[in-house]
């Protein structure tokens, strides 16, 4: 049914401006093709139901990871989700083709401003420098990594900016897969893992 699956992960959603706005706008839009799974609400005890997650993924064409950047990375439950759901032999490795050909879209936010993510800012690197682990995770599973939607300086965003950001998010979901930039992106070729690098199933 749902060909867009949003995996939302914010450990303190009540404190979040950006992600509450995103989720609020998404619910308000009531997109028929999209399903949102709030990981922290589903798995407050960090006990992920792998089978249910894989079943939800199976139907999706677009997978959205919607979470804030914490310590230059994803929140712990999102990482646990990656560890447990994207298993060997299912998402990667021999016969691990369940996700091949799907799209992965990162929708995230940072507390630091855009200016801070520069060699002369206190985060010392451009934000893109923190994305290779995401890109390679996608590549290993045969997912196409779409250009992320990032909101910097989340704490300082005005209500108007938040609303505009949330609107963009919902509009893009509604238009998928008719995004202009998709035409310029290559199909992702899944990286094969050499047999001696993996335990054989």
């Amino acid at each position, binding site marked *: 049914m749902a060909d867009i699956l949003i995996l939302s992960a914010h450990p303190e959603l009540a404190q979040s401006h950006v992600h509450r706005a995103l989720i609020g706008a998404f619910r308000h839009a009531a997109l028929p093709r999209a399903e949102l799974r709030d990981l922290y609400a589903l798995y407050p005890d960090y006990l992920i139901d792998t089978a249910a997650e894989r079943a939800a993924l199976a139907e999706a064409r677009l997978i959205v990871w919607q979470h804030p950047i914490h310590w230059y990375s994803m929140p712990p439950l999102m990482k646990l989700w*990656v*560890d447990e759901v994207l298993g060997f*032999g299912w998402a990667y490795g021999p016969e691990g083709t369940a996700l091949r050909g799907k799209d992965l879209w990162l929708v995230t936010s940072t507390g630091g401003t855009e200016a801070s993510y520069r060699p002369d800012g206190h985060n010392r690197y451009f934000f893109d420098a923190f994305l290779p682990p995401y890109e390679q995770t996608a590549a290993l599973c045969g997912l196409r990594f779409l250009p992320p939607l990032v909101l910097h300086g989340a704490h300082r965003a005005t209500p108007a900016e938040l609303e505009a950001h949330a609107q963009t998010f919902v509009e893009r979901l509604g238009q998928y897969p008719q995004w202009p930039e998709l035409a310029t992106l290559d199909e992702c070729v899944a990286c094969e893992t050499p047999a001696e690098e993996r*335990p054989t199933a």
Partner: protein
Amino acid sequence: MEHTSWLHVGLVYLAAAVIAVPLARLLGLGSIIGYLGAGIVIGPWGLKLVTDPADMLHFAEFGVVLMLFLVGLELEPRRLWAMRRPIFGWGNAQLLGSALLILAVGVACGLPWRLALVAGLGLAMSSTAIGLGALNERNLMATTSGQGVLSVALMQDIAAIPILALIPLLDGEAGSPHGGSGWVGAAKAVAVIAAIVLGGRLLLRPALRWIARSRTPEIFTAASLLLVIATAALMQAVGLSMALGAFLAGVLLAESEYRRELETDLEPFKGLLLGLFFIAVGMSIDFAVVLQKPLLVAAVVGVFLALKALVLWTMARTMPIPYQERPVFIILLAQGGEFGFVVFQSAAQAGVIDAQTSSLLVAAVALSMLLTPLLLVLADRWWIPRLADCGPVPQLDEISEQQHAPVIIAGFGRYGQIIGRLLFANGLQATVLEHDAEQVEAVRRFGWQVFYGDATRLDLLRTAGAERARVLVIAIDDMDQSVAVARLAREHFPQLQIVARARNVRHYYLLRDLGVTLVERETFDSALMSGRAVLESMGWQPHAARQQALRFRRHNLEQLEQMAPHLHDEAKLIAMAKQGREQLEALWAQERAEVQRRSARGGWSTPAAERADDPPI
């Protein structure tokens, strides 16, 4: 003329009750004294507004019948069966002990043995109406002393039958006992009780269901009254105690789905008729006899109360009843009772004792009934406070001021306290109800604000704010009470989210049946934590042990849900439980084998999905 007299009587009784009872309560004397006082005032020895107390007493006896029906409703057959020992053991100890002691003292004082025996039997009886009424008023029904009073009262009701049959025989020549003579009477009695038990089991519930389906509330009320009256009439026809019959019918309906409705329908009738009964008792005190021989009456009252109190004191020590509850137990059972009236009247009719003696004894009984509520008040002021040193004081005021907290916690024992502390630490307000007085005292010493009250009572739940609260925590350890509270809350406060503690799986299903979704089995999680500790001790990585415990938890909950529809099919339940266990064992054995195979081949560390489940290798 008929109408005027009817109106007149109603006017007098109701006005007397409405004026006297609030006045008595205001003076801290309790409603029973108010009724008795009202009776004395309007009776033949007061304002002479009513002159036929005997008729009224007869009519108002129905209040006692209704009360025993309602007491029966609270007592499932299973619990009654469990009470058989106290009823026959303690009941007989009280009755025979008191009767023999009075007989002995009477004979020692030079009375003829027949008179002493009749006096002993009649005075050994205690007033069920005042006893249970006072217990209800003080909310002591569920305490040890309350159950003791109920047991003895039930035994007295049973014993009244042979006693009434015996009295005419004392005349020397064989008289005719109440419902036919000898074997025929006994056979009739057994047949009627059998009819009530069988009818109650097989016919009453379908009949009530059929009546309830008519959806006419007043017809259901009428049916409730009819049920009690019919039972009483049936019992009376064969010379058995009406109250006992009503009690039996109540017990038989205690497990029916209409229990609550019957209760709420009959409660006001019971209250008013019982009040009328007390008024009639007040009116029937023959002050002429009292004034004629004031010293003799006082001596009779004093001596029989002292003798009965002696027997009861010994019983209270052996049972044992907690120190603070002993005064109430002794006072409530030491008094004479309405059955005494009947005993003396029939003895006078049979010529065993003369009319003069009969009315003297009746006056003594009535005076003792008047004294009882007064003695209770005195005991509250002077006796019970002195017992405080012997342990915590259980006499507490129950919740009476309207509360408004968004959370209500019913039961503040080991379970409720943890919930409460978590909530309070998070800045939430909660109204805490606890029905065990000792527990209330104990947690109050730690500075918790806890209300004393029984959450199975609708009025107390209302006072606790159930109409506007959002969450009701049921942390009561008694299963029956817990289910009763849940049912009450579902019926009357559907907006309340119920969070419940279940003692075991059966309790869990009972609560789920009522639509309660947030139920936790009280030992389940702690047992899992212990299991997790064992896995760790056996070398599992702490995190792997945690993961297995949580997976087991999820599996168990899923299985519980799957089994719910087959609740009543034990064979199926066992089969499903076995199958579920085997599935889990097989699944995890397979996982272990997989991991072992991989680790044997070396290479990469095992993938994430299975990693957490690995046993140490």
